[in-house]
């Protein structure tokens, strides 16, 4: 049985929860929320510029899911993909309404007790480099990275969310990875490089929007 590495819940348990939620079981819907709220928020946050928008849209997605759940049919449609399609549509609607560009978040970082100002500045630079590399991808490539990596969807779920074939998703992902590696200078033989600091330093700082 396939178990998504980002979601500990297996498909059977999820199907049962969805069936219970469709019958009006609020607790079951609460558990679905707990399972998907983080990934949905991260996906939305990667596509809107303000944290308040990410919060509002995340709430909107789950309210829409609540309304649309009675019409959801599990046959062949991964629930995660269905939910992320709702999220994607909500983002598109918001962008249309506000004429907002798909800008990646420019975060402010808050120093922790351990991090020096120099380390914080360096980390901020590195994170900005990642943001720039992501911004240089095509819209489709970036969306695949957001869905697959930031939200943790499977290829099938990402395909459902984007309304594409799984093979297309794999191709977009392959090209996105190549482009990111080139932009960030990540090669197989490289050992010390700025992006590596991102991973190491991010563990020592508390970061907010």
């Amino acid at each position, binding site marked *: 049985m396939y178990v998504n*590495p980002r979601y500990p819940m297996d498909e059977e348990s999820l199907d049962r929860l969805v069936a219970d939620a469709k019958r*009006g*079981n*609020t*607790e079951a*819907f*609460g*558990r679905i*929320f*707990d399972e998907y*709220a*983080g990934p949905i*928020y*991260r996906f939305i*946050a*990667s596509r809107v510029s303000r*944290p308040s928008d*990410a*919060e509002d849209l*995340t*709430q909107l997605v*789950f*309210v829409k899911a*609540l309304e649309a759940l009675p019409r959801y049919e599990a046959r062949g449609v991964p629930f995660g993909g269905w939910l992320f399609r709702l999220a994607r549509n909500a983002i598109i609607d918001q962008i249309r309404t506000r004429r907002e560009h798909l800008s990646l*978040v420019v*975060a402010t*970082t808050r120093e922790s007790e351990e991090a020096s100002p120099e380390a914080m500045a360096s*980390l901020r630079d590195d*994170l900005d480099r*990642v*943001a720039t590399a*992501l911004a240089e991808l095509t819209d489709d490539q970036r969306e695949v*990275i957001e869905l*697959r*990596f*930031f939200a*943790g969807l499977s290829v099938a779920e990402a395909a459902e969310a984007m309304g594409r074939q799984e093979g297309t998703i*794999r191709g977009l*992902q*392959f090209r996105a*990875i*190549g482009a*990111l*590696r080139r932009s*960030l200078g*990540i*090669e*197989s033989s*490289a050992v010390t*490089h700025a*992006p*590596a600091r*991102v*991973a190491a*330093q*991010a*563990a020592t700082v508390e*970061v*907010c*929007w």
Partner: protein
Amino acid sequence: MSAFEGTNPVALDRLEDVLDAYREARLAPPGAVLARIRANVLAQAAAASATIAAANRLRLVEPRSTRVRGWLPPRFARAAFGLSFAAALTLGTSAAVLAAPPGSTFYNARVLIESALLPTELDARLVGHEDLLAERLNEAATAAANGDTAALAAALAAYQAEVNDATADVGDDPDRLAHLEDVLAKHSAVLAALASTLPQESSIEHAIEASSKAITKLQQKSAPVHPTRPPQGGGTGGGNGGDGGQGGN
């Protein structure tokens, strides 16, 4: 397993680390934000659920057939009526439900919603159970003070149901078991005091009995890991023979 298959694994690991750090640093939701969204979404879910339940109850009392078929409104008119009725129910019902006192029509729905809104994380859930138990107890005391036997019975029935839920959720952790046991023991004392002020109230006796049973169950659960907490009603032979001197009365 990497989310990215089919390329150089070392470079992919590096890229994953970098994206992972970026995700955690810039995209991770603050806990308070998720809690706020959860509360709002589940309140809507509970209101929708109450509406469905109310609609089902209405369907049950609706006459199954009518002789004057010609008087039936057209299908679209019935659908429109249904939709507006559901919308009115959603707004009206949710407000009425959330303020329903014990003994009122929506009290059971309110109790159901409050239970459904409890968090899933165990410690927070147990705190929620404790709050609800205290609330049910207060409602019972208020009803008793007002001489409202119907409200008293409703509050005590909800209290018993909450005792059962809390006992089912508490798990096997000895500290949690001991804490819940203490809470229920205090509540039993309150209920006993309440019972003594009333002429004869069997629903209080039932609630006290439910509390006592729950306490016994908790003691039995914690017994294997708490040898210093012997089960009530005597020993099983063997063991701490030195304590036997207490039974001298």
